[in-house]
């Protein structure tokens, strides 16, 4: 237990406040993950990967929410992550169904195969 104490494991240290200097690295990780997810969404042509990238961005948002929640010593952040999870699940279900549908039509997973909005 003492070893863990020295490591300031979260659960035991919970009631203590978390300083902004601790918060900042989490946020940076969150931002980086979000950006990577974004880049992936923008660059990859495979629709499945694109959806994966959106999940990545959800993840980044979730991390930020939890980090902020911890900073504020509240539970709202976690609650919201639950909703994010819900949405992510719903999105995955719908999106993948769509992907399957679209794949059946074009025999391709490329997002560029669908250009009907071309003006």
């Amino acid at each position, binding site marked *: 237990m003492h070893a863990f104490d020295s490591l300031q494991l979260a659960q035991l240290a919970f009631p203590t406040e978390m300083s902004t200097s601790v918060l900042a*690295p989490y946020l940076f990780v969150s931002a980086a993950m979000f950006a990577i997810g974004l880049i992936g969404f923008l*660059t990859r042509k495979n629709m499945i990967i694109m959806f994966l990238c959106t999940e990545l961005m959800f993840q980044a948002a979730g991390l930020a929410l939890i980090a902020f929640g911890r900073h504020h010593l509240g539970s709202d952040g976690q609650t919201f992550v639950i909703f994010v999870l819900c949405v992510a699940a719903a999105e995955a279900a719908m999106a993948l169904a769509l992907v399957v549908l679209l794949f059946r039509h074009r025999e391709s997973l490329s997002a560029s195969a669908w250009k009907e909005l071309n003006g």
Partner: protein
Amino acid sequence: MEQIISPIALYLICAIGAAGIALALPRRARTRSLEYAGGLLVAIALGGAALALGLGAADAGNPMPNVFFYPFALVAIGASVRVITHKRPVYSALYFIMTIIASCGMYILLSAEFMAFALIIIYAGAILITYLFVIMLATQAPTGDGDDDLDDVDAVAREPMLASAIGFVMIGLITAAMFSGIGELPESKMTQAQAADAVLAHLPKKVDKILEREGVLADGWRVVRDHETGLAMIDVDARTIQIELLGEDEHGEEGVLATRMLGAEDWPDALAADNIDRLGFNLMHDHPIMIELAGVILLMAMLGATVLARKHTELEEALKAAQARKLGTMFDDKSHGNGFDDDGHPSGGHA
């Protein structure tokens, strides 16, 4: 406001990272070295970021995150880079699981252990498996180790430079925004004790149970409930608890026979709200409607997915195209006035 990280360093890190990602994104060129170089650059950037943040905090004498944070962060970001740079979707999905697991580690560091496990169960266990199913459904199995068998869809990234630039500009901006505003974040309104245990007041039965288990409460005693709100009369700051004895009085009527105040010395260690208590209470007490909505969303998604993925007995594309062409010529003819006979029937239809 103190700068957590020097903006120049931040922007430099972003630039390096952008370059790295741009290099690492898939392309047809058979130069793996470029991808490695990209990976290296990303690593340098991340290392630089960690260093800068750590140094900044250390200089100011501020606390640093738990040491476990660094491996988790490294794995999370590295895996997510691989998610978007790997050419094979299955690997991407697996790397994504890795990202999630690393994130879960960070969740635990942030004392959100329930969410950590929920995430693993739901994401890694359910969602990603679905992804894998779909990937396997829609992609043919690789025939070799090289990229040659891959479609352009997977093998070539679309405008990597632009996207990387935009992405890292976003990082720069978001982090700049966060870091410039982070010092002004309001402190929590709750005391630590409140934050931890305020929820206990809402859970009088749980308090009764723990107190009984710990032997603090004698038989027949229980925590006093507020008449109107039904909250337990607990002062988490002062660590005092009001308890009462219920029973029949001399007239044989049910009522409060005695009340007493338990002091801080009587407060058992076990009397504390855990994370799940708080989360559950928050979820149910503060966001009931959103739960309903989430349920509806999930239901609709289920229905939608069912409907969308249903296999239609549809016309072949070629047949459709042929029909469309036919219709097109028919209307063309009409516009020239010779496709219809006088009664307005398409003249070509009977041929």
